[in-house]
């Protein structure tokens, strides 16, 4: 990155206000033209435990959360003990000295910044959370930004309570001034810009993007990490005229969504892997009725309940295999948060045009991560293409007979395989849509003794629909040289982190190119084969244990990757993991490299920190590769 960046880590127990402190900080710096990428590593607990939020801040938009910590804000002793050793030389640790003290020496070159919070704000006596406000004020000063951004955020956050604004602004200013007087600023100083930023999560972008693309029906069952899509819709359904329902389970969710879509409303639903498992049968229903549906699956670490608050790219096989039989489906994995915004529009248009299910594969990293996006990039009017949809009868139709003597055939065996779809309510197009195999007129052929010809005809008709689909799907492109020593291949959310790893590898003299796959089904076999068939060393990077994408690549193209970098510890990749993985593959001729996130320097006996004496030990810099 050409512009300086600062990575701030904020840690505390659930309930300490990690997320809201992070949000205040992110919005404040965004209002001074700084871009942010934030990732919160948290636990499935409401109180206690450990929550660790990293915000990467720079005038140049970061595309991942980086892999070091420049400034630590410790909201409790546990955080100070865990993360002090992670700070890089020149870094600093902010903490409330009335409540905590470092348990060990900081690394060389790291500045300790104790904040005497009770002396800085009288409100602390009643409101312990004021320590967060003081620390945010201090860190903003030490990054080289001025106070106005934070002041305006505190003003709008507590807009209805002037007294609360006053107390918070005073506390933040006290922290800001105290830091100026007592601590050395960070060596990387941020420069304000005039760029405006919207601070969003991937889930919010999915919801808003879908609404802009004409979503009229949204249904879900709460499941991490997809729940915030439902919450955004619930909060905006009334003003936007979207029917938003929370219902009993994901079986009901998807059947309702298909029901609404069947009538002509654009319907979407979202869940995580366990919910997708329940939706499985109805994904085939959408395929058989040829009723469009858009399903977002926000992956989390599985199997089963798995690790509900941790990220993984482990549901690829599930998405491929959801439902019995053969039928066309489309699977798209957005590459970035801005992509989360545009993908629902693409998915709706494809679902309508091809009358089939479209699955969007996100993951916790993408969906719950916070990122700044240029607001101009979000005020977009999407093209709404509904395909061959009949929503009104031709003039003169009396509502009781077929149009112009020709009977309407819902499943007409057309050359394209796409049959014009009349929605219920339209006169003259009465039909039954059936999950059983049916003929062109919708009448069941499933109970006929044997009707091989018509059965094959209908399977072929549905299959044929996909013949033109690549015209509407962007083909993947190689970034970098085809002659590079290494070609890194990823899919979905890992685009940002791989991009940065590629930059670093090239800088270190290992020529590296990058191919990121967004459309998983159907697969761009020709384009991908043309690129990877010429690559010198193909290395697949994916956030799962068994290499689900690498297997897909081999099945579709016959190309076997030379190397694999995999991670399945619950945490997302950081650039350093991929750089180290590539080196390991090159130096040791390894085929599979698993990388692991460790808290470098300090290991704990109580990883959850939820009970008992907190015991830990200092260890040398931990290995990140196994």
């Amino acid at each position: 990155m050409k512009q300086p960046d600062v990575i701030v880590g904020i840690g505390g127990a659930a309930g300490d206000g990690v997320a809201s402190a992070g949000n205040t900080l992110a919005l404040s710096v965004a209002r001074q033209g700084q871009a942010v990428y934030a990732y919160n590593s948290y636990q499935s607990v409401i109180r206690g435990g450990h929550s660790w939020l990293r915000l990467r801040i720079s005038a140049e938009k970061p595309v991942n959360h980086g892999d070091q910590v420049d400034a630590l804000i410790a909201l409790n002793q546990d955080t100070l003990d865990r993360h002090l050793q992670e700070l890089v030389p020149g870094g600093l640790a902010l903490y409330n000295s009335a409540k905590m003290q470092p348990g060990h020496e900081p690394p060389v070159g790291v500045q300790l910044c104790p904040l005497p919070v009770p002396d800085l704000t009288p409100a602390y006596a009643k409101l312990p959370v004021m320590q967060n406000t003081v620390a945010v004020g201090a860190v903003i000063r030490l990054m080289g930004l001025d106070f106005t951004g934070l002041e305006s955020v505190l003003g709008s956050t507590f807009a209805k309570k002037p007294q609360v604004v006053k107390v918070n602004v005073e506390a933040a200013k006290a922290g800001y001034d105290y830091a100026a007087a007592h601590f050395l600023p960070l060596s990387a100083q941020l420069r304000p810009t005039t760029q405006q930023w919207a601070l969003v999560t991937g889930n919010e972008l999915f919801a808003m993007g879908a609404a802009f693309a004409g979503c009229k029906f949204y249904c879900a069952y709460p499941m991490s990490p997809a729940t915030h899509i439902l919450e955004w819709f619930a909060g905006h359904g009334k003003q936007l005229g979207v029917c938003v329902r929370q219902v009993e389970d994901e079986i009901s969710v998807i059947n309702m969504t298909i029901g609404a879509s069947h009538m002509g409303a654009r319907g979407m639903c979202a869940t995580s892997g366990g919910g997708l498992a329940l939706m499985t049968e109805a994904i085939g229903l959408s395929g058989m009725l040829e009723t469009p549906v858009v399903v977002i699956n926000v992956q989390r670490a599985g199997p089963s309940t798995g690790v509900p608050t941790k990220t993984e790219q482990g549901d690829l096989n599930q998405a491929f295999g959801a439902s019995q039989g053969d039928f066309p489906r489309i699977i798209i994995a957005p590459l970035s948060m801005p992509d989360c915004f545009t993908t629902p529009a693409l998915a709706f248009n494809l679902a309508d045009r091809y009358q089939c299910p479209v699955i969007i594969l996100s993951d916790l990293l993408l969906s719950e991560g916070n990122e700044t996006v240029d607001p101009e990039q979000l005020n977009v009017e999407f093209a709404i293409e509904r395909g061959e949809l009949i929503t009104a009868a031709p003039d003169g139709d009396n509502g009781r007979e077929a149009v112009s003597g020709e009977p309407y055939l819902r499943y007409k065996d057309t050359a394209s395989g796409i049959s014009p779809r009349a929605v219920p309510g339209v006169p003259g197009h009465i039909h039954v849509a059936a999950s059983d195999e049916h003929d062109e007129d919708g009448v069941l052929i499933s109970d006929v003794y044997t009707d091989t010809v018509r059965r094959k005809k209908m399977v072929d008709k549905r299959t044929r629909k996909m013949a033109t689909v690549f015209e509407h799907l962007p083909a993947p492109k190689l970034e970098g040289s085809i002659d590079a020593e290494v070609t890194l291949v990823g899919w979905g959310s890992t685009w940002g982190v791989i991009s940065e790893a590629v930059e670093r590898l090239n800088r270190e003299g290992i020529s590296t190119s990058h191919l990121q796959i967004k459309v998983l089904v159907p697969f761009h076999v020709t384009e991908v084969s043309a690129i990877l068939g010429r690559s010198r060393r193909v290395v697949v990077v994916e956030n799962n244990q068994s290499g689900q994408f690498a297997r897909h690549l081999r099945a579709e193209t016959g190309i076997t990757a030379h190397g694999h970098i995999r991670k399945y510890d619950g945490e997302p990749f950081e650039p350093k993991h991929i750089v180290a993985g590539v080196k390991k593959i090159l130096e040791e001729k390894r085929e599979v490299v698993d990388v692991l996130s460790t808290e470098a320097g300090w290991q704990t006996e109580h990883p959850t920190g939820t009970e008992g004496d907190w015991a830990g030990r200092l260890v040398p810099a931990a290995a990140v590769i196994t």
Partner: protein
Amino acid sequence: MATVTAVLEVKDFKAEVPPDWCPGCGDFGVLNGLFHACAELGRRPHEVLVVSGIGCSSNLPGFFRSYGVHSLHGRALPFATGAKLANHGMTVIVTGGDGDGYGIGLNHFIQAMRRNIDITYIVMDNETYGLTTGQVSPTSETGMITKTTPHGNLEGMLNPMALALASGCGYVARGFSGQPKHLQKLYTDAIRHPGFALIDVFSPCVTFNKHNSYEWFRKRVYRLEDSRHDPNDFHAAMDAALEWGEKIPIGLFYQNRSPRPSLHSQDPGLQAGVLVDQPLGVSKEQRRKLVEEFM
């Protein structure tokens, strides 16, 4: 869609495909009653949507001339709920059997009543699994011998009437396919009821349930209309729901005099009218405001 009352006849609702049920099946009576009820109500076929699940009785939409969906086993109610919310101008009727609605789909049945979606639900209750050739069902009597309970059914019977009352259903009725005229009256009242309406219909399976035959029902059923039953009295309805044995009541058990508003009339997203009639997308000004929420 405007509600137009047209003069319609039974033949307007008869599909070209004849029913494939066994001769003597109770479902014929259910279908006939529905033809007459829809003709009487004057809703035109394209304004009616019939949704079913899977099972012998769930083949009904294929024999009924209106828009129809033959959905998944047990999932007709969620499908129909989504359809009704998307186009509440349509009359939505759900048909199915006891296995479909009270077995695999039971959760959805309770939830649909709780959320009071304006759907008429007709359950052809034959106390057996007919399409799979005679296994035990949730409404099979305790002790009943079937292919999968060769030593007798160990489980208790599900009581759909009592369950519906307890779940807040505003229209709870039971019919007998041996009395199609009576059924027709229950259907028309149920479709007119502004909210979820249940009609459980004794619909004998002449092939796989030799126990609950037409004769068995004829000996036992009596009409609540012929007794002193007050269908607006919830507690009396519950007493009637618990009656089973030598005497079994049919007819209207309960109708809420001041029913709760139906779901579509309350949903905040539907205040502008029928969902599928609304324009798609969001205005530039509205988009700008939504984006500003993140700044």
